[in-house]
């Protein structure tokens, strides 16, 4: 059982990041897309904390807190948009929301 | 009522329609209220009643006057004594029978005690609906004392059938005066206990103040009677307006509220209980001696004609319209039930409030479904 190095964490966050992007790209349901974005942000956080642990420096963790703050803000506004959307379009599928198309 | 023109049906609006009842803990019986909601606010209600309809008026046409008396107790089973009083007095008016003073006094005392038990049951269930669990048990403890008096007097606690046409069936048991006086002495202290628990309790105020407002003119228009009418500021009580039984000789005053909300109805009923105590005490103190039943023919055959007589039941004006065709059986008996008419005002009182208030308003109108459906 080799000793766990930062490399392991970096690889884990890369995998998580890719799963997140796949989720964003392939899913039609806007709520699931939002969730996949959360996954991506978590991957970023893991990286930050791993390097903070590697370099014994608190700035990584501080930045991770800011990422979490941002995720919360983004989720709130995103879900607000979904509710407004659902109220007048009765759908949450990304394909059907093509209002901008003329 | 809900303005539903035939075309726009009740359910086409995209609001939420919720059924409350018919079996629901706080509808005081089998009442189903269809609530039309916009989110939490109530847009309109529709009451579906008739689950407890036993066709009392049809039965009356096939029973003799004496046989029908017990049916009367089963309508408003909480205030059975006042039902019996109303019916007997209506028939006595039809046959112009003179009821001896002792019978009048005992009738008055028992009716006032019955009013207290009805108000106690109302207070207990009303507080329980709003969330205060404890008053229910205090009210039932007091109610027990009074039900014992009924039990000693006529053998029954709830549907008493205490009175007969023309007066009373039984002489008052010895110890009747002492027991009534005992109740009159201990009861005011207990009432203060409820007042201490509820009257200036901030949460109770918040749940009842300005909830289910019914202004005076609306109340008269809706034909609402009893404490609900008096809480809207109309000083009208049949015991004062058209005295019956021994109410002329009693001095008591009629409590009224100002803005007709749930809190005022609560205060009016609490004060009414105190007034009933005063009447009961006076009745017992000045109980005259003498016969307990008037000159009643063996077989009751009232003359041809009709009469409408109403008394002040705990819920409101309880009226009897009896048409007689000279035979031993009434030709038509119509009962004017106060709960049925008061329930009609529910829609006006509840409009614009929240769901939780429907429960409070149903409690404050104090309806008994046996009387609403007859």
């Amino acid at each position, binding site marked *: 059982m080799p000793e766990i190095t930062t490399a392991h964490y970096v690889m884990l966050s890369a995998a998580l990041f890719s799963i997140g992007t796949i989720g964003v790209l392939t899913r039609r349901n806007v709520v699931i897309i939002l969730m996949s974005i959360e996954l991506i942000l978590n991957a970023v956080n893991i990286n930050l904390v791993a390097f903070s642990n590697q370099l014994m420096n608190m700035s990584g963790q501080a930045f991770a807190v800011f990422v979490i703050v941002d995720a919360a803000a983004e989720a709130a506004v995103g879900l607000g948009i979904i509710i407004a959307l659902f109220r007048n379009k009765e759908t949450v599928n990304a394909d059907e929301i093509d209002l901008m198309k003329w | 009522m809900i303005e539903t023109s035939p075309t726009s049906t009740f359910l086409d609006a995209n609001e939420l329609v919720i059924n409350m009842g018919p079996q629901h803990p706080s509808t005081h019986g089998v009442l189903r209220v269809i609530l039309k909601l916009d989110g939490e606010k109530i847009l309109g209600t529709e009451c579906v009643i008739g689950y407890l309809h036993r066709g009392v008026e049809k039965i009356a046409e096939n029973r003799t006057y004496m046989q029908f008396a017990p049916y009367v107790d089963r309508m408003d089973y909480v205030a059975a004594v006042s039902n019996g009083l109303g019916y007997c007095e209506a028939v006595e008016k039809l046959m112009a029978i003179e009821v001896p003073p002792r019978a009048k006094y005992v009738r008055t005392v028992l009716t006032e005690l019955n009013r207290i038990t009805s108000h106690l049951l109302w207070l207990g269930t009303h507080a329980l609906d709003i*969330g205060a669990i404890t008053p229910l048990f205090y009210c039932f403890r007091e109610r027990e004392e009074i039900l014992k008096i009924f039990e000693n007097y006529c053998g029954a606690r709830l549907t008493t059938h205490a009175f007969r046409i023309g007066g009373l069936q039984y002489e008052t048991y010895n110890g009747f005066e002492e027991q009534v006086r005992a109740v009159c002495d201990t009861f005011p202290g207990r009432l203060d206990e409820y007042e201490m*628990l509820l009257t200036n309790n901030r*949460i109770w105020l918040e*749940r009842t103040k300005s909830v289910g407002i019914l202004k005076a003119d609306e109340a008269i228009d809706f034909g609402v009677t009893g404490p609900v009418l008096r809480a809207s500021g109309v000083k009208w009580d049949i015991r004062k307006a058209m005295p019956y039984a021994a109410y002329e000789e009693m001095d008591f005053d009629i409590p009224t509220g100002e803005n007709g909300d749930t809190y005022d109805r609560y205060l009016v009923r609490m004060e009414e209980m105190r007034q009933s105590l005063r009447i009961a005490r006076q009745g017992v103190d000045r109980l005259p001696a003498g016969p307990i039943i008037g000159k009643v023919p063996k077989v009751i055959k009232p003359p041809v004609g009709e009469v409408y007589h109403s008394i002040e039941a705990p819920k409101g004006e309880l009226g009897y319209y009896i048409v007689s065709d000279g035979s031993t059986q009434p030709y038509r008996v119509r009962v004017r039930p106060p709960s049925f008419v008061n329930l009609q005002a529910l829609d006006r009182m509840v409009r614009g409030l929240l769901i*939780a208030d429907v429960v409070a308003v149903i409690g404050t109108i104090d309806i008994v479904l046996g009387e609403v459906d007859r």
Partner: protein
Amino acid sequence: MPFSFPPSIEPFVLPALYIVILVAVFPLIAGYIVLLERKVMADIQVRLGPMRVGPHGLLQPIADAVKLLIKEDIIPAKADRMVFWLAPVISVVTALVALSLVPFSKYFFVADTNVGLLFLLSITSVGILGIILGGWSSNSHYPLLGALRSTAQLVSYEVALGFALIGGLMVAGTLSMQQMVHAQLEQQMWFIFYQPVAFVIYFIAALAETNRTPFDMPEAESEIVAGYHTEYSGFRFALYFLAEYANMVVVSSIAVTLFLGGWLRPFPNVRLLDFLNYAPILAMFVLAFFVFLGASRERRPIDKMGLAGLGAVCALIGLLFLVPAVLDWVQGLFWFVLKVFLVLYTFIWIRFTVPRYRYDQLMRIGWRWLIPLAMANVIVTAIVMILF
């Protein structure tokens, strides 16, 4: 220790033992809290409460537990099976995990991290998921509405709870639960006197957190919208019940630890009050005496024997406490349990004397009164601390 464990897992043994004790004993404690509640309710309402099962109804909780186990476990027709099973589990698990952070006494605690209170707060906030999923998975209209309403209530009162705790933490200066108690020991003052406003706000928010009257809107039976656990029956309902009481204990122990001096004896530094150290022994003997008194008055022989046995056990424990080592160990536990009992008693007491708030009033109080007040309290405390 009779034998020493391999070094690497040595730090895990004691906490593991405490965890086992907690998880095994707590359902029983929750049952007896329910019995306590019913007895107090009966007492307030001029009646006796459960008397039939066992002497003075003492075996009632066991009867309740068995009934809930045997009862048929109904799952609504198109309910989402997995989530239906998962929801009560989340509630109970979060409640019990929160219990692990509570410092019962100097020696008896499962874990003490230096983010103790924050971790506790986050665990209780996860408990809300159990409620939402429970309401949603029963696949019927009313529980869903009830779940949404109770979630909104919990989330908004959690903000108030958080701010009230910040007030307390500023004085304590640490997040770890044990250090809090030591801080109160050094400053020789329970923090309730430094932060009375925070304590009051915390208490009200705690009432709302555990859905107790006057904030028990969600499962107010007189509403037409039934609570989130309407469709649950049998053992699943028992899990929700257990979660509720566990939450109550957690919330009151946070109050005790932060504001009422945790497992400290009242006036710990005053030498002449040292006789208080022997309070546990005294308490046990007084308890034994009352139990024997009760036993003598029992009619049924089996009750008489049962109570006599209980009395003997109490007396025995009293004797055991005489041993100084044991006394020292049990000292903290006794005072902590006593204080938690008092806080629980006020929870129950309030439940049976106060009517219920309407939903919008409840939310208005939460947002318009509690949160601004709590924030103001934090600011004032900050200013005061800077000046002195």
